[in-house]
């Protein structure tokens, strides 16, 4: 049976093509990320072949005879330190001699007579080759113990504070610190082998492939059960001996195998590419803490075990998520809705993971599928989940949580799949029985438009999804924590309250005076200290100065920002633009909002079903033979798509706007838009408020156009799955590429229009570019509409 299930999957062209595409995307992203990874971890560049060979030989000497090597290494190290010391002394003496007008010719040998060419050669070789050994050695024997000691002592301090504040030793917080002490006390004694570590640290930073895996899963799962309902084989299969429990078990096994296959092939591809780009991998048998990125790893595992756990966690997560999606698909009984639910679920997880608006210890964040599949999080430091006051370590929590999801959803799926459907009757007693009525909710309008609304929103239950989407939006907005008003921002706000508005000579003078004051305070510490020591000022005056000094030190970085803003405004003045001082924090957050993933997913799926339901239900042939079934119906469906997407986008924009005004302060809306440094390149003579209107309008327009494009493609594709795949790939893939550094993809990235500001910045602030870009996008949409019209309206 397993063989046939796999054969069904291999016969599904959509799944195969999608897998191939995601595989390719993952490979490309790996290829791009591999050289970037070293920079992310502050690793030195790869060595040339000759140097690498010498370094390899050095490590081999160490492994062959550690004692002899260490003696040699220690000697070279000592030589280096002695030379540094001698050089320092010589330099000091030479400077002193110069000040005294004497001859300055002190050398190293004056302070270290034994220094000779042989010692110099050893030191040079140390600096060239042995430093790579020293990097590992000092990390393992100096830095790492200090790290653990620091963690342990901090934990002990926290515990003392908890007790001082009256917290119980049985509290979660106290237990957490106890765990930290226990774990890192053990880590201190780990027998980590010195080796030329390479490769694994960069490999484990790569997380982009998880998106590809999850997208593949979302595309694969709904068809596993729904294809048989759709093609009519479902009732036939269920009437066979093995067509229920045995079959659903086989389907689960298929899902597991496919999840494992996807994880292994994607991971292997990344491993190969990273290996080629980063010069191979070090051993699997050393402890994972050998890598600095994993210094705080709480688990005693080797690199090989870490790799195995990573793959296992990814497979389990995918399998559990697939199982959950299977249950949902059975409940929804509809391919399009199943894909939408997957996208919404995945999208919500992605938002939580990527935007980081939840605290890093929040369970929603820790047990988020993207976080879990980014297994580096699990192994980067100690995390625990609070379970009734007790600490459940993160790794076991993952297995328990996703295990429960898997088992729970598997049971639900099995029950849903195997039960015999029928009219659901509830019998209260022998005389009374209730049946779920067959009556349909009637249409409230008799127009073509009214029926379209009824058909899709009411009878098709899209209104429920609309409500669900609004609820999700409300929830995500509500759980967005305010960016706490930091001291820096509070100081900045104070400055802007003083300076807000047009640039005047008085304000410029104030800035100059403030700078002078700060500089004076920061340079006068020694002087004031001396005065205090000479009793020229009182203790109170000295402390007052100290307070002023501390304030100046705290304000200085912020004030530098204010000065930068002044310089920006002066530069604008030279361009003939009179900008204003504006408190930019809120505006920066407003205009850097990303596009709304939930809105995107809804527009995509809703647009995909308006025409495809007619093709799928067989009504297309009948509708097109009626008087209004071509031109008018065609136009009505577009109007519906535009109306629903537009209204939803406006609501979402309004909600975001309200939340923004709650979180941040917005002032100076009437100032020229170029007053905001991030928008200095805008070439229009408009205010910030006017720019805001254009920005919000573009975001709404983007969603509308997305809906229109999807509707048009659906007429050509005739199936919702094909439609969503085509539109999603053409609009999302460039965005993914941009996110991982391929900047040129911005020119074909539709999400720049959905986000608004990026689109305007792409236009380089030029009206001409903006008009051309917009016309091109709209022109493309019109072209698609006309093409779709030919298909539906014409014979």
């Amino acid at each position, binding site marked *: 049976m397993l063989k046939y299930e796999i054969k069904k999957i291999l016969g599904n062209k959509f799944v195969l093509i999608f897998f191939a595409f995601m595989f390719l995307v993952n490979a490309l992203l790996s290829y791009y990320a591999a050289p970037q990874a070293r920079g992310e971890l502050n690793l030195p560049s790869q060595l040339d072949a000759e140097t690498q060979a010498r370094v390899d030989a050095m490590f081999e000497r160490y492994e062959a005879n550690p004692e002899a090597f260490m003696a040699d290494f220690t000697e070279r190290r000592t030589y280096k330190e002695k030379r540094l010391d001698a050089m320092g002394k010589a330099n000091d003496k030479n400077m002193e001699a110069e000040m005294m007008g004497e001859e300055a010719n002190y050398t190293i040998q004056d302070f270290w007579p034994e220094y000779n060419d042989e010692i110099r050669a050893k030191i040079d070789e140390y600096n060239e080759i042995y430093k790579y050994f020293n990097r590992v050695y000092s990390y393992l024997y100096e830095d790492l113990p200090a790290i653990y000691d620091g963690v342990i002592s901090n934990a002990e301090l926290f515990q003392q504070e908890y007790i001082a504040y009256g917290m119980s030793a049985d509290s979660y917080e106290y237990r957490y610190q106890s765990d930290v002490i226990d774990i890192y006390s053990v880590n201190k004694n780990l027998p980590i082998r010195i080796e030329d570590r390479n490769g694994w640290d960069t490999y484990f930073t790569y997380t982009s492939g998880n998106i590809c895996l999850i997208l593949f899963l979302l595309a694969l799962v709904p068809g596993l059960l729904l294809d048989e309902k759709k093609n009519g084989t479902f009732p036939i299969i269920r009437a066979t001996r093995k067509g229920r429990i045995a079959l659903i078990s086989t389907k689960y096994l298929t899902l597991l195998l496919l999840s494992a296959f996807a994880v292994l092939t994607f991971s292997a591809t990344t491993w190969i590419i990273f290996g080629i780009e980063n010069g191979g991998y070090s051993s699997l048998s050393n402890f994972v803490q050998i890598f600095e990125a994993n210094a705080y790893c709480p688990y005693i595992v080797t690199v090989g075990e870490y790799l195995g756990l990573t793959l296992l966690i990814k497979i389990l997560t995918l399998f559990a998520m697939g199982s959950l999606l299977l249950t949902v698909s059975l409940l929804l009984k509809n391919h399009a809705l199943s894909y939408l639910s997957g996208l919404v679920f995945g999208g919500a997880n992605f938002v939580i993971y990527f935007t980081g608006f939840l605290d890093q210890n929040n369970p929603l964040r820790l047990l988020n599928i993207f976080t879990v599949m980014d297994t580096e999080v699990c192994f980067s430091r100690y995390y625990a989940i609070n379970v009734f006051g007790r600490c459940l370590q993160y790794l076991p929590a993952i297995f328990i949580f996703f295990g429960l999801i898997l088992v729970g959803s598997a049971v639900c799926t099995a029950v849903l799949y195997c039960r015999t459907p029928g009219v659901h009757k509830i019998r209260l007693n022998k005389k009374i029985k209730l049946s779920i009525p*067959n*009556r349909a909710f009637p249409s409230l309008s008799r127009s073509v438009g009214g029926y379209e609304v009824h058909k899709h929103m009411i009878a*098709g239950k899209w209104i429920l999804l609309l409500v669900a989407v609004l609820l999700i939006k409300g929830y995500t907005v509500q759980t967005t924590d305010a960016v706490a008003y930091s001291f820096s921002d509070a100081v900045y706000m104070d400055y802007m309250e003083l300076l807000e508005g047009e640039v005047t000579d008085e304000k410029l003078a104030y800035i100059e005076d403030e700078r002078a004051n700060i500089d004076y305070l920061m340079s006068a510490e020694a002087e004031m200290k001396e005065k205090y020591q000479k009793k020229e000022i009182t203790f109170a005056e000295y402390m007052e100065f100290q307070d002023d000094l501390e304030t100046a030190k705290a304000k200085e970085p912020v004030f530098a920002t204010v000065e930068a803003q002044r310089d920006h405004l002066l530069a604008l003045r030279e361009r003939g633009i009179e900008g204003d001082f504006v408190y930019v924090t809120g505006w920066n957050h407003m205009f850097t909002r990303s596009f709304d993933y939930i809105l995107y997913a809804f527009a995509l799926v809703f647009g995909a079903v308006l025409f495809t339901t007619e093709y799928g239900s*067989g009504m*297309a042939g009948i509708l097109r033979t009626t008087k*209004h079934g071509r031109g008018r119906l065609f136009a009505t469906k577009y109007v519906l798509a535009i109306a629903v997407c537009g209204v939803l986008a406006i609501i979402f924009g309004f909600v975001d706007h309200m939340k923004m005004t709650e979180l941040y302060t917005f002032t100076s809306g009437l100032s020229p838009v170029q007053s905001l440094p991030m928008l200095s390149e805008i070439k229009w003579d408009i205010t910030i408020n006017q720019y805001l209107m254009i920005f919000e309008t573009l975001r709404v327009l983007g969603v509308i156009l997305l809906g229109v494009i999807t509707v048009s493609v659906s007429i050509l594709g005739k199936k919702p799955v094909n439609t969503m795949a085509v539109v999603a790939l053409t609009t999302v893939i460039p965005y993914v590429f941009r996110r991982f550094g391929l900047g040129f993809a911005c020119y074909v990235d539709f999400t720049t229009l959905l986000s608004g500001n990026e689109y305007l910045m792409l236009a380089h602030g030029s009206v001409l570019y903006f008009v051309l870009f917009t016309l091109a996008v709209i022109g493309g949409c019109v072209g698609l509409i006309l093409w779709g019209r030919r298909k539906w309206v014409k014979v």
Partner: protein
Amino acid sequence: MFTIKSLSKSYGSNLALNKFTYHFDHGIYALLGPNGSGKSTLMNMVTQNLKPDEGEILLDGTLIGKLGHTYREKLGFMPQYPGMYPSFSALDFLRYMATLKGLNKKKAEEQIDELLHAVELHDVRTHRIGSFSGGMKQRLALAQALLGDPEIVILDEPTAGLDPKQRIAIRNYIASVALNKTVIIATHVVSDVEFIAREAIMLKKGVISDSGSPYELTQKIDGQVWQTVVKPEEVQAMQDKFRVVNIQNGEQGVILRILSDVKPTEDSIPVVPSLEDYYLHVFGDIL
């Protein structure tokens, strides 16, 4: 009135319809042929759901392409596998179709009420279509095709899935409304159209192999249809030797209806041929 000239359509290398030419007046026209003979292809081209490779369709001398929605105002169509909206009620579905057909609301309500009674769905008119049986959906599909009193009615397998009583009722209803319409019924259930069709068109591999009134067609095999009674154990031998079109158990034995140029047995008697006999005579080699 309604003319089709040299209509052809290919699907790749498969010539589904080959220079189909016919003139239709008012009345019922039966389009007979086995599966794959081109009936549905013709239906879809007449309803402008498919573009022909060549040929013309004219209504009162004007190409239907030029008439636009004026043509569709006069058209009623029931496809072979009619689609429905499961969550609509029957009443709402007909009202929806009436809206699409541009019917006046008052007239639409009258027609809907009449049609629902005619197809025996009035009692369940507020129920969800998703709860209907296959036969009920078929009757509802017929009702929507007749909504708006169209001049041209295209019915593709209208009685598929109906029980004998319903088939007769539908057949009689179609006959009653077809007086001043052109009704084209594509079917391979010959008995449904034999007594109501004005003309029958035999479509074989995309080509008209014969056409005429049922009487004219059956006359062509007059004297070639026989009835004979045999013992049960002789039935197989007779089937191997002759084209047996019907087997019936009788008091004296098994009654066989046979298509044959020659008298099958000594005691065989000639019977009046039916349109079904002629259908089997034409398409016997394909079936």
